[in-house]
């Protein structure tokens, strides 16, 4: 894997996930991770960059996302076609388990990938929107720590929003 550095003219970087898996990515993909951009530009990205907050499962997805976005944007297609293509890709990409979504959101925040962060936030919000309070608690595994009286009070406080 690492020998491809010599074979291709493109610069590649090695990213190491929390659980020790090393991913090889091209520069066009790596620079989308704002958190390591400075390292790359300052040529301090050797031998590999450790990403302590991201598991290999999530990092693989993040790289897939960045790769597709890098390829589409440099593909020479017209802007509107590229836009459409990215939209379709994003929609399919977001079609994952809720826990994965939350981890992706968190990873995108840590790695500072703005478009992925916004995409995951919007997707999670749309999941919250269509659910009842009880379903949201279940989805986020949040315990209802209101007492009966307290919950009644907050529901009364925001009663207009439930109509």
């Amino acid at each position: 894997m690492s020998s491809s550095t010599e074979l291709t003219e493109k610069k590649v970087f090695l990213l190491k996930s929390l659980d020790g898996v090393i991913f090889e990515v091209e520069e066009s993909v790596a620079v989308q991770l704002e958190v390591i951009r400075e390292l790359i530009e300052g040529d301090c990205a050797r031998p590999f960059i450790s990403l302590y907050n991201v598991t290999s499962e999530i990092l693989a997805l993040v790289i897939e996302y960045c790769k597709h976005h890098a390829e589409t944007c440099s593909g020479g297609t017209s802007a509107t076609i590229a836009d459409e293509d990215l939209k379709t890709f994003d929609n399919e990409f977001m079609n994952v388990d809720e826990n994965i979504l939350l981890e992706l959101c968190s990873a995108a925040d840590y790695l500072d990938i703005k478009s992925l962060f916004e995409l995951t936030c919007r997707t999670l919000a749309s999941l919250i929107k269509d659910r009842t309070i009880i379903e949201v608690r279940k989805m986020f595994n949040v315990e209802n720590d209101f007492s009966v009286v307290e919950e009644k009070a907050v529901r009364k406080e925001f009663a207009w929003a439930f109509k």
Partner: protein
Amino acid sequence: MEGETSWFSHCIDNFKNDSVELDPFLELNDKSSEEVADAVFVDLILPNDLLERILACLPVASIFKAGCVCKRWHAIVSSDRSLQNFSILPLQKPWYFMFTSSDEPVGYAYDSVLQKWYGINLPYIEASSWFIALSCGALAISVNKLSHNYNAFIAKSKQVPGWQAGDESVICDGVMYFLIYSTGGGGTDNRHGLILYNLTSQMPHSLLMKSFISAIGIWSLNGKEWQEIARVPHKLFNGFGEFDDVFASSGTVDLIYIQSYGAPILLVYEVN
């Protein structure tokens, strides 16, 4: 919290103590404990600022509904900081608010994103007149009696024969526009006029006249030329205008709301 008079002013300090900051990824180090940790896992990887960003993508009513999930969420939704963040998001649009009673502080708010009306009971205000500004889910009320701390500009105009002052004015880009009405006699061509007064340069005012047709439309003023942007389609106008010929209109950001006093209809026009 019973008998609380304001929506937002809840003491969030009571709820602060449960937002323990944990390393969000602590549990991930140990693969074997992942199943055990699963029950609290999700809440752990979602620090307040992330949750705030996710909630900010919701329509306004859903944001407040989310405040009923648990104490931590309630604290986030009620905090001043997140309320500010919520309202600057491009996903939100200004709301329209109308009173439904002249005596009681009750009214309806309209969210143009969800196209939904919400009945809202305002906190009791002991004053006879108030001005309401409702935008992106936040409500500002300025009450005449209590008003202080603002700059008042008084522009004095010469009397214009044949015209009387209306009670509508607006300040836009440093220019005050003041609506005047013809007192009749001059035919029906020019029934409305505008007095312009530049507040920043204190330039002498100028008078603009406009003959309006019997339709509801939106015009923009380019210098001194009126330019029609849109006109309410005849079909809508018929249903709209037949109850009453007095309309209230207001605009914020890129929305213009037109409401007929006599009919239960609200027209929304989005500029651009």
